[in-house]
């Protein structure tokens, strides 16, 4: 757990060093108030929009007779493979003067709605249909049943998804900086990189951490208790599907429109620039090297993250209590820290504490672990719920030791979920930009950093091959996630 804490400790120490009067001076300014208001407004707008889009999409795909619902299920998950800065680059290079708050909100909503769609679709597909039938039999109509029963059943999934979106938006750096939305992350990066104003950046980061803690606290308050373990026994039936009748085609058209905005625009833009990009001499070799680097750092990052997530996830699922909740929440706090802060805190940590690791892939892996531990912990905890304690007790009573029961019962039941978590982490590592920029060993370029370098100089054609390859590589785990979700 120390991993999740390193950046926090660094933040505390460095902020403390600045002295109280200086902190107050930096904190209570109009600029901080404006930044906070704008960041929170962006979080609110994007989270609300993602929740509406994600829940509606998940319901249409899992619970209605929508034409082509499997196809739409895959389409709704695919934006996960589009990094926000790629989407931002695609929009700004296609639509003139596409920038500002609403532009940022649109791009972030399109990119992060899968974080709500995927868990809610899984929960809707697996919910006990008997509860809905009881509600209908007690005289509640289809809509009342949906709001009073179905939504309650999937509320933990909605809350978890919405929390991820909110944290994602709060810490997003790529889209807001390309689309010129002045939020905390952009201000921090500017202060660090341009102004060399470490204290100002640290104070802004601290405010960001406080906002994160408030978000997590709020989610904790609304979290429903119980329903921690999957049902065992009993005949599980698939839920009944709602007949949309005349509304089928408008619903399909709406989902198609969302998919066009989320996938079509980036695809068209990339295709356009790609034609110019690949004709550049010598580009193929550079792209291949960067792709190899991306794969290597993302694989080591995902492996390291899963290694840390296993104990925390199992503890959260199995021994719920104050300690487990605290550990779980701490990883969320680290997740919401901007990649810039994580990156620079680890630069500091690398130089001062573990110098042999500095400028190595391992420090980058550590940064990924800090950033993406919540994704992995969530996946492990969810997977652990697939293996209720009564199964392990039955195994123990049949003469199998704890290790053997773990190997023959717990592991086979949880492995699919853990695998999905690993895929998600791998995908997210691949897309990570700011920490990679700061921590990569000198001279090592990944797809994301190459893309960033070329976008910065407005050489869209040179950037396009990296963006396209990044999207293709990242789409593989997304595909795996969606297929496994049985949508």
């Amino acid at each position, binding site marked *: 757990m120390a991993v999740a804490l390193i950046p926090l400790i660094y933040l505390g120490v460095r902020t403390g060093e600045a002295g109280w009067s200086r902190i107050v001076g930096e904190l209570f300014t109009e600029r901080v108030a404006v930044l906070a208001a704008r960041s929170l407004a962006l979080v609110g707008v994007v989270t609300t929009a993602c929740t509406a889009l994600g829940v509606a999409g998940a319901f249409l795909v899992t619970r209605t007779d929508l034409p082509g619902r499997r196809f739409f299920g895959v389409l709704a998950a695919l934006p996960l493979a589009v990094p926000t800065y790629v989407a931002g680059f695609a929009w700004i290079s296609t639509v003139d003067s596409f920038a500002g708050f609403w532009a940022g909100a649109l791009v972030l909503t399109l990119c992060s709605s899968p974080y709500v769609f995927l868990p809610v679709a899984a929960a809707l597909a697996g919910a006990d249909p008997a509860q809905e039938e009881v509600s209908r039999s007690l005289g509640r109509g289809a809509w009342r049943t949906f709001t009073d029963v179905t939504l309650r059943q999937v509320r933990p999934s909605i809350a978890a998804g919405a929390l991820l979106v909110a944290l994602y938006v709060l810490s997003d750096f790529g889209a807001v900086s390309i689309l010129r939305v002045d939020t905390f992350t952009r201000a921090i990066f500017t202060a660090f990189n341009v102004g060399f104003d470490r204290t100002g950046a640290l104070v802004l980061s601290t405010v960001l951490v406080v906002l994160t803690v408030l978000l997590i606290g709020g989610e904790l308050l609304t979290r429903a208790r119980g329903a921690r373990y999957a049902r*065992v026994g*009993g*005949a599980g039936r698939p839920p009944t599907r709602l007949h949309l009748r005349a509304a089928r085609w408008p619903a399909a058209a709406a989902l198609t429109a969302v998919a066009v905005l989320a996938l079509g625009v980036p695809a068209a833009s990339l295709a356009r620039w790609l034609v110019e990009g690949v004709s550049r001499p010598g580009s193929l070799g550079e792209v291949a090297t960067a792709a190899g680097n991306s794969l290597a750092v993302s694989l080591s990052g995902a492996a390291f993250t899963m290694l840390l997530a296993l104990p925390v996830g199992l503890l959260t699922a199995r021994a719920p209590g104050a300690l487990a909740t605290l550990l779980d929440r701490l990883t969320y706090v680290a997740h919401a820290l901007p990649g810039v802060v994580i990156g620079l805190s680890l630069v500091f940590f690398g130089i001062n504490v573990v110098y042999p690791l500095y400028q190595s892939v391992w420090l980058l892996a550590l940064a990924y672990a800090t950033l993406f531990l919540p994704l992995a912990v969530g996946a492990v905890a969810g997977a652990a719920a697939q293996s209720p304690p009564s199964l392990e*007790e039955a195994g123990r*009573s049949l003469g*199998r030791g704890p290790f053997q029961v773990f190997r023959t019962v717990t592991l086979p039941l949880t492995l699919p979920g853990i695998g999905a978590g690993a895929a998600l982490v791998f995908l997210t590592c691949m897309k990570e930009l700011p920490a990679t920029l700061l921590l990569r060993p000198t001279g090592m370029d990944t797809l994301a950093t190459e893309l960033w370098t070329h976008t910065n100089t407005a050489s869209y054609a040179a950037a396009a091959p990296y963006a396209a390859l990044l999207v293709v590589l990242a789409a593989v785990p997304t595909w795996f996630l969606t297929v496994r979700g049985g949508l």
Partner: protein
Amino acid sequence: MLSVAGLRKAYGSVVALDGADLEVATGTLAAVLGPSGCGKTTLLRCVAGFERVHSGTIAVGGRTVANTGTHMPPHRRRVAVVPQEGALFPHLSVAGNVGYGLDRAARRSGRVEEVLALVGLPGYGERMPHQLSGGQQQRVAVARALAPRPPLVLLDEPFSALDAGLRGDLRRDVREALRADGATAVLVTHDQGEALSMADQVAVMHDGQIVQSGPPSTVYREPASPWVARFVGEAVLLPATVDGPDAVTPLGRLPLHGTAGDGAVTVLLRPEQMRVSANGGGTAATVVRHDFHGHDALVQLRLTDGTEVTARILDSTPPLAVGDTVTVAVRGAARAFPML
């Protein structure tokens, strides 16, 4: 085979087991019978090794598996459990589930097919748990527990989730399977009918203690207390005064089982001891309620002094109706308890 002595277990300030004692002989089926919250599931989990005991001892086949300082882990105890919901491993086939507790050689020896036949599911090995009905899942759970021939099998209310018709067959089949395999078993249940019909020995549990243990007929006919009497069946408890070998009750002078000291007592009668007739001998009474059960009926009668008693009648010709006046006489003897 199983010997539990002075078992204590508390969760915080809630005492679940308060000095429970239980002896189960080899090859028999014992039922631990008690209302919800009496501690019977905790007792079972302590025997299985899923919970640590605070004090007292548990011995299985002469081996002490738990006492104040020692706790043998569940997998070394050779005590197999059939959980309430079956808890079949969802990722394994029926054969995989049943063979889970067997080593490689035993799995090939045909033991899996043998126990599946024993529980009435021959040829089901290739199915997956989700393809089975609730009753079939429970049968597989029983087969899985029996397969490694454990000295002791624990069944935790395994029939409570099933419908009544299925339950009867399954109870009989499970008891036959346990017998045929020579297994010693402890069944935890809150269902009196289940305990009395299945078990060789019934242990009645109340507030964390075993208050009476013995053959089903003894527990029913000679309950240790009015509470046990009421819990294991319908009971008619009447105030009475002892007079030599008899008791003077609102139903007249009744002979007593054994002897009791003089003075005020509570006497127990079972509804089936009541003989109700239209105008025979006995005490006059009015029918105040009539519950028809098909094979018999329970009739609530009010005596002239206001005391109410319950009678079980097999054949009500002429049919009784609420408000009818009848006479009630008692067959057999009453059992006296100190005044409540």
